[in-house]
């Protein structure tokens, strides 16, 4: 501008004045100045928002991490596993599948691997002093040699059955069975009494997420199992009448596990029933265990919703807290508002200052809340051995929600500050 108006009052028309201007950077600085001068109050009112956001981000992070873990499991286990079991209930027969089912299933084109297990009606005992009724829910089973590969199972320690060991009295324990029997290693040559004969424990399995029934099994080879059953039948001559459906010496599968070409699952599923039991296909039940895990992945736990609700309530309370603090700030800082108006601030400048202050306050709370939420997720997921997954949407959404709350909470106080007449604001309190 030219020389100041001072002393030169000769102009006929007044000089046109440019508008008052507040730089964007200064809007932030002015908004922040109100917060830095009242640090305790700032921290406490940001805390309300932070807790709400932390609860929501934490809950979403934890449930997402747990789901990611489940998804990893499903991927690792494969979704192309089908399980065939006999249907129970009326006309459900004797709870076994036809003896030749395994061979028939293996002839279906897209079937890549098949393995069956046969539950054996014999006791599993730690020693001959233990009562037969106290088998601790452990089931003796004859396992096909391909069972482990078909189920993508793994050994905890020891070894799996081979052609050679399947013919001699050796046993591999499921994870639950091993725990109940207190087996922690195989070197000691631990023996179990199965169907009256001593078996050497040669291995222990990791849990089968897709076939939990096997975890309670004591798995022996099919050749040795046949001799066990023959021996038992010979001892109990009175039970010969069941031989119509399952002749002695032939083992009827209680479950068949199979892997198919992933693109042919539905086709295989369609023909399985009639392949296994052509006379009564509806006595055969077919399931796809990965579907159970997938369903589990899709369910929201009641806890998730409860905590989300608590987070929302806390957020609301935090918002009310911010509104409260801002209303108090406007009352306390009346003189400052009046002074700024005297210095040339327009009403929008004042409104922007207090709105910015509320937004910064809630952004502070939101950022802290997201950080706490992520930390809680990391701690919990770490303790569970999960991958740490915090959905970006939860973080962005949490921060956005904090900002939205700040905007709403700050609007009324900001309007009030802007609406204050300069002279009223300057009057001494």
């Amino acid at each position, binding site marked *: 501008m030219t*020389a*100041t*108006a*001072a*002393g*030169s*009052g*000769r*102009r*006929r*028309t*007044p*000089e046109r*004045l*440019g*508008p*008052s*201007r*507040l*730089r964007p*950077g*200064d809007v932030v*600085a*002015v908004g922040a*100045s109100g917060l*830095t*001068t009242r640090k305790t109050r700032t921290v406490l009112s940001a805390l309300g928002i932070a807790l709400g956001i932390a609860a929501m981000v934490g809950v979403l992070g934890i449930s997402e991490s747990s789901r990611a873990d489940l998804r990893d499991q499903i991927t690792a286990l494969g979704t192309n596993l089908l399980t065939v079991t006999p249907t129970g209930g009326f006309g459900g027969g004797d709870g076994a599948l036809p003896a030749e089912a395994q061979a028939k299933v293996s002839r279906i084109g897209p079937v890549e691997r098949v393995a069956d297990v046969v539950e054996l009606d014999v006791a599993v005992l730690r020693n001959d002093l233990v009562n037969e009724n106290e088998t601790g829910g452990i089931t003796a089973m004859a396992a096909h040699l391909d069972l482990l590969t078909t189920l993508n199972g793994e050994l905890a320690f020891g070894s799996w059955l081979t052609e050679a060991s399947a013919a001699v009295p050796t046993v591999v324990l499921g994870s639950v069975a091993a725990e109940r029997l207190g087996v922690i290693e195989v070197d000691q040559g631990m023996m179990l009494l199965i169907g009256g004969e001593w078996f050497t424990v040669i291995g222990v399995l990791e849990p089968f997420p897709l076939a939990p029934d096997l975890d309670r099994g004591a798995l022996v080879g099919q050749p040795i199992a046949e001799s066990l059953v023959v021996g038992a039948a010979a001892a109990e001559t009175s039970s010969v009448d069941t031989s119509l459906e399952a002749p002695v010496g032939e083992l009827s599968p209680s479950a068949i596990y199979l892997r198919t070409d992933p693109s042919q699952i539905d086709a295989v599923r369609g023909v399985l029933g009639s392949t296994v039991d052509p006379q009564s296909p509806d006595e055969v039940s077919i399931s796809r265990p990965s579907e159970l895990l997938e369903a589990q992945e899709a369910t929201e736990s009641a806890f998730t919703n409860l905590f989300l609700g608590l987070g929302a309530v806390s957020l609301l309370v935090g918002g009310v807290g911010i509104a409260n603090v801002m209303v108090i700030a406007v009352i306390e800082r009346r*003189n*400052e508002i*009046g*002074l*700024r*108006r*005297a*210095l*040339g*601030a*327009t*009403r929008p*400048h004042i409104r922007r200052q207090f709105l910015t202050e509320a937004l910064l306050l809630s952004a502070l709370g939101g950022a802290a809340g997201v950080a706490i939420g992520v930390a809680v997720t990391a701690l919990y997921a770490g303790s569970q051995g999960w991958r740490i997954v915090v959905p970006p949407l939860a973080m962005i959404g949490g921060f956005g929600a904090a900002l939205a709350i700040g905007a709403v909470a700050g609007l009324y106080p900001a309007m009030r500050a802007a609406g204050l*007449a*300069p*002279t009223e604001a*300057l009057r*001494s309190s």
Partner: protein
Amino acid sequence: MTAAVELLDVVKTYEGPPPVQALDGVTLRIEHGELAAVVGPSGSGKSTMLHVMGTLDRPTSGRVLIDGHEVSSLGDRRLSAVRSQLIGFVFQQFFLVDGATAIDNVANGLLYRGVAPAERRQRAAEALIAVGLGHRLTHLPNQLSGGERQRVAFARAIVNRPAIVLADEPTGNLDSNASDAILDLIRQLNEAGSTIVVITHDREVAGSLPRQIAVRDGRIDHDAATRVAAVER
């Protein structure tokens, strides 16, 4: 010729209850370069008149012209522009921001002109040096004496080099030494060309200034106008 401030039959009534007629038909003209004292008993309407002159308040009726700008025709945005560019205020209570240093308080005088922060601080430092506070730049208000605080407020009012400075009892909270320092600054500023209106209770102070405007019951009671030659540059 445009006056610095011109009031024409200005009436200001505060809506009650009960309604108070604080200004009751004030007509007054203050030329560029003048230095005027406003005196009068408490409640006579001095502050109201200063607020109307400073566009902080609008009259109930009558016309107000600030350097030729008709106040009644301007909206809030334009009035704010008038205040930020033409007028500097000094108040009895200083109104410094507690958490800000002297230099930042003074720099606030340029905040609503859109001046960049670095330049604001530079000019604020110059203004503080001009009021004799070069050694107190980074002090907080509560680390300053009353007289020093008022000098900071004075620096804030003049940092933007406004044509008009309006001071409402600037020495009201100060002892006589500090008052003298402020009055010296006011005289210096006027000699440099600024138009200044000072409300004061102090008859002696008022008598030492070139013009005295006495207000009573919202009217100009007495106006001992002593025309001073406008300082040409």
